[in-house]
């Protein structure tokens, strides 16, 4: 197993955190992982991406040219990364926000109303967790439980009161992605 994942969206959508959450959970399952952030002069509302590789074998280059999975959390990142996704790869699109549609026919496309599902889970700001759930619903890279239990370690204890709503969002996304 080897997946090369790009998470992309606006700064402030929790893009870096999505990558860290899945990389951390995968590490705990004994997998090799790398995580690289975009670390330019990023600001809230600017573009942000995180590159995550999860593999059963040691990872030489941590850089991703053609992701096998891309999560596009907004329109600009959809337009930027649709062309880069590897043939037969998976493109997850936040259709609540994206202002255009994907055109590729050689990849799997999952359009998902992320903001609405996050709202249903209890907080419109946690669309990133919905997207992660959907990703695991579609591709069994790691178990849902690893992801959920991992959050406890990487979320600052000051915010542990938000863990239940995050879990709900992940499960909602998972359900949607498993369909």
């Amino acid at each position, binding site marked *: 197993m080897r997946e090369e994942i790009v998470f992309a969206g606006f700064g402030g959508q929790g893009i870096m955190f999505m990558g860290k959450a899945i990389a951390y959970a995968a590490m705990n399952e004994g997998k090799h992982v790398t995580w690289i952030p975009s670390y330019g002069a990023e600001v809230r509302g600017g573009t942000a991406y995180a590159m995550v590789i999860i593999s059963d074998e040691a990872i030489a280059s*941590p850089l991703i040219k053609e992701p096998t999975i891309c999560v596009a959390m907004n329109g600009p990142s959809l337009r930027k990364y649709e062309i880069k996704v590897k043939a037969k790869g998976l493109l997850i699109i936040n259709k609540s926000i994206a202002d255009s549609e994907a055109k590729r026919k050689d990849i799997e496309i999952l359009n998902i109303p992320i903001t609405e599902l996050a709202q249903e889970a209890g907080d419109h700001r946690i669309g990133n967790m919905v997207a992660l759930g959907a990703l695991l619903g579609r591709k069994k890279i790691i178990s849902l439980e690893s992801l959920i239990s991992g959050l406890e370690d990487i979320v600052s204890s000051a915010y542990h009161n938000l863990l239940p709503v995050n879990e709900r969002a992940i499960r909602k996304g998972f359900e949607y992605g498993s369909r």
Partner: protein
Amino acid sequence: MAKKVLMCGNEALAEAAIIAGCRFYAGYPITPQNEIPAYMSKRMLEAGGVFLQSESELAAINMVFGSSLTGARAMTSSSSPGISLKQEGISYLAACELPAVIVNIMRGGPGLGNIAPSQSDYFQAVKGGGHGDYHQIVIAPASVQEMADLTMLSFDLADKYRMPVMILGDGILGQMMEPVEFSLQPSAFSLQPKDWILDGCKGRKPRVIKSLILNETELENFNLKLQKRYREIKDKEQRCEVLYGEDSEIMLVAYGTTSRVARSVVEKLRKIGKKIGIIRPITLWPFPERTFKKLEKSVKSFLVVEMSCGQMIEDVKLAIDCAKPVHFYGRTGGKIPDEDEIIKELDAISGFSDRRSDRG
């Protein structure tokens, strides 16, 4: 086995410095190394040491100078433009035979450049960026685990040879997160008392640490003493990693992040039977010349890959006395060579990837 944690390279380096016994850190903020001072600002206090955000890079390196001569394990970090500012201080550390660890998480240059990864400070690091006939040991990690392990080694080497050691990383290594285990303990060496420090001379002869030596003979003799030590280091401390040294026709040569990309190329081409390997220098000074001399006999040519316009390539040519062709591929300005570009370059050299794998 210690528990694996997911950390970025900068933080892993900082934590390893604490474990190695570093109790003085001074630095001035600059991307892409800010996680080092940020981490130290919290962790150093827990460890009972001193964290100081100085007013400038010059102040930081001179504070390191001061704490080192009182016997502390001391470190500063910066990125390219900030490291240029520290050069005077590094020359003084070398002149006063003071151990110190200096971290350069390189970014695009020259000048203020940009904050993207780069390897264009190689010359500055290995050829002596400050004035005078001195060297610093230069260590090049290639993973977050090595950011930790080699930091511990750097403190040991600095104390052992009483000289500055530079850890030469790049923006990717600093920012990237990978699993890391802090399983190393400070070596026995690091626990030895230092008999040269300035810690108050009550009851003993006063000691002097200075770099001003006006008498020509004395200064020449001091230089010869340093050179003798440098020869010893060249003899004992060359480090590198070699993959497929036995049967490779072409050897890639790369360090740091670039070596990770080059390694992917090697793995890809080995799967289709190509005779290619990689030499990854871990010490850039001393350069692992012995390995090059040994492999030069069986290798047909070398391809050096760097995030620069061609700096380490000079040391490769020197190491093999230009006995074999040494090619170069580099990207600069914050660009990173990608696998396809390197393979294309290999093709241009020898039709490498087009050749049938069953041909010797």
